[in-house]
């Protein structure tokens, strides 16, 4: 087992990994930019090292600085968290070359899951259902139009290197499609340095349902149930829950089998997620792998009572998973509290936290790096906190989470806490009548 782990991240996920290290008796080493020197991850880690100025490309994304920090701190492994370098195959390769353990999948897996059109083809070949669409990248707008007529409008143009909603466009007809292909390609080239795009049928009123997987270096893959993440804003998740109300036991079994097959096809190791679209007709389609720990992993932890970050560390250290299936109990829901203004199209709301008071009590877990006096920086992701509620059933989880969001106090910035509580208490959400468009019902109408 590792004795010293460096955490190449900040915010709540850095805290999450520090806590896991502490629980395992591992020395944690935080890195921080000069903007983060008073942050909790820098103070709660056993050791901490300043790696650069506030801009992420000069600090948290600066590979030489992070490797140098790991070397001078004598870290045996690096946990990348999510975001930043977590899905950068070059970083994973460099770690390997420097004989530093990378706590995540292999560089090859990361590279494959980052190339979405290739990955899609691999999954199709492995018998995992994928959304009807192009075979590989599309070369020009004319080919796209021809294909779209075959599979039927509307269609989605997606960047192969994309993520987080960037380089993604819907087209309802020929003209719009031609435009969309050009725009998405330009956007993707600018954002990811790769203008390759592919085509998928756009599935209306779909749900986002993903499967948590763990794979060890002995070749075992375990599925840990699903998470429904249909409540999204700007293609980014806001509320996640497990189990999904949309899955019957037999549909769940089918989806777990598909996720297992997907992971097995690429010899997946460490923690990851297989993401599916679930159509209103109960057909589901592979979309992509997330080759890292995810923001919403706690809901799975609450119903399985497994510590997924500890599992990641154990797997990276070469330990086998000691089980092939997990039991789940009850229902868990997570609400993400972002420093954003829901009334202004989720515009970031950085600033000073004048007062912060965390909720508590039975069934409530809070993962956050917030404290009174924290200055939410402009430089990084706006996630402030995750509030997770466990309940014997979905209703109890809803009541507990909505109540906790009411109790949560954050003065100084706008947040998504009240919006989440409103959604949770709505009849629509309670009925489970949700899809990836649901959020629109809760936002001001755009004239």
């Amino acid at each position, binding site marked *: 087992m590792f004795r010293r782990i460096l955490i190449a991240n900040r915010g709540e996920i850095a805290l999450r990994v520090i806590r896991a290290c502490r629980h395992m008796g591992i020395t944690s080493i935080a890195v921080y930019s*000069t903007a983060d020197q008073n942050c909790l991850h*820098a*103070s709660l*880690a056993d*050791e901490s090292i300043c790696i650069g100025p506030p801009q992420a490309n000069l600090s948290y994304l600066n590979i030489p*600085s992070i*490797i*140098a920090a790991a070397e001078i701190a004598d870290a045996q492994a690096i946990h990348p968290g999510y975001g930043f370098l977590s899905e950068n195959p070059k970083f994973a390769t460099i770690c390997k070359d420097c004989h530093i353990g990378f706590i995540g999948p292999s560089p090859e897996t990361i590279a494959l899951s980052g190339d979405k059109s290739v990955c899609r083809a691999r999954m199709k070949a492995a018998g995992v259902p994928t959304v009807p669409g192009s075979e590989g990248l599309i070369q020009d707008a004319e080919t796209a139009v021809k294909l779209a007529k075959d599979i039927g409008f509307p269609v989605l143009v997606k960047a192969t290197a994309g993520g987080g909603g960037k380089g993604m466009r819907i087209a309802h007809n020929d003209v719009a499609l031609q435009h969309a292909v050009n725009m998405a390609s330009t956007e993707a080239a600018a954002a990811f340095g790769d203008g390759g795009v592919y085509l998928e049928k756009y599935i209306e009123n779909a749900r986002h349902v993903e499967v948590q997987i763990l794979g060890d270096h002995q070749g075992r893959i375990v599925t840990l149930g699903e998470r429904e993440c249909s409540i999204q804003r700007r293609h980014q998740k806001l509320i996640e829950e497990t189990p999904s109300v949309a899955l019957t036991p037999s549909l769940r079994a089918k989806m777990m089998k598909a996720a297992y097959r997907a992971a097995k096809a690429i010899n997946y190791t460490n923690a990851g997620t297989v993401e599916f679209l679930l159509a209103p007709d109960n057909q589901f389609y592979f979309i992509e792998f997330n080759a890292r720990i995810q923001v919403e992993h706690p809901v799975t932890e609450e119903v399985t009572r497994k510590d997924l970050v500890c599992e990641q560390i154990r797997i990276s250290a070469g330990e086998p998973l000691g089980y092939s299936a997990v039991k789940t109990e009850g229902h868990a829901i997570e609400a993400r509290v972002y420093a954003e203004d829901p009334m202004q199209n989720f515009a970031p709301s950085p600033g000073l936290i004048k007062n912060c008071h965390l909720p508590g009590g039975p069934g409530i877990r809070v993962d956050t790096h917030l404290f009174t006096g924290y200055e939410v920086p402009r430089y990084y992701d706006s996630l402030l906190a995750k509030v997770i509620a466990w309940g014997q059933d979905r209703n109890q989880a809803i009541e507990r989470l909505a109540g906790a969001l009411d109790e949560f106090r954050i003065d*100084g910035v706008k947040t998504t806490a009240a919006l989440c509580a409103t959604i949770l208490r709505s009849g629509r959400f309670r009925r489970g009548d949700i899809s990836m468009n649901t959020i629109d019902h809760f936002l001001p109408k755009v004239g």
Partner: protein
Amino acid sequence: MDLKTLEDLIRIFEASGLGELEIEEDGRRMCLKKSGAGPAYQAAYAPMNPLPAPVAVPHIPEPEHVATIDSPMVGTFYLAAAPGEPAFAAPGDRIAESQTVCIVEAMKLMNEVGAKIACIIEKVLVENGQPVEFGQPLFAIRPL
């Protein structure tokens, strides 16, 4: 004061924890204030466990001198290009602007650190071969 200097001044002030800065010089007066500065909140959260000194990295010494040359990156500090070679800089040395004063090694890359201004080295603050953080003062200097 030219605009470039003003811009730099504002940047320095913004990066600092200061709420207010007032400068009066040659009949000119300048006052910078941060918005939202006020007593309504607790400004500094002194963490329960104060920022721990990393074991691997010696605690940054309190600068005794006003001017320093700081490390531009995290890595290992070397005073000379190789063992046995003469040191780039030693106390008393007169250093020209941009002259290399040391090396910080990160990922096997030897990064030469140059003086930003002409100066005299007053003290070497880090021992040869020791790890350094970003921004850690390496030399105390007297500007020329």
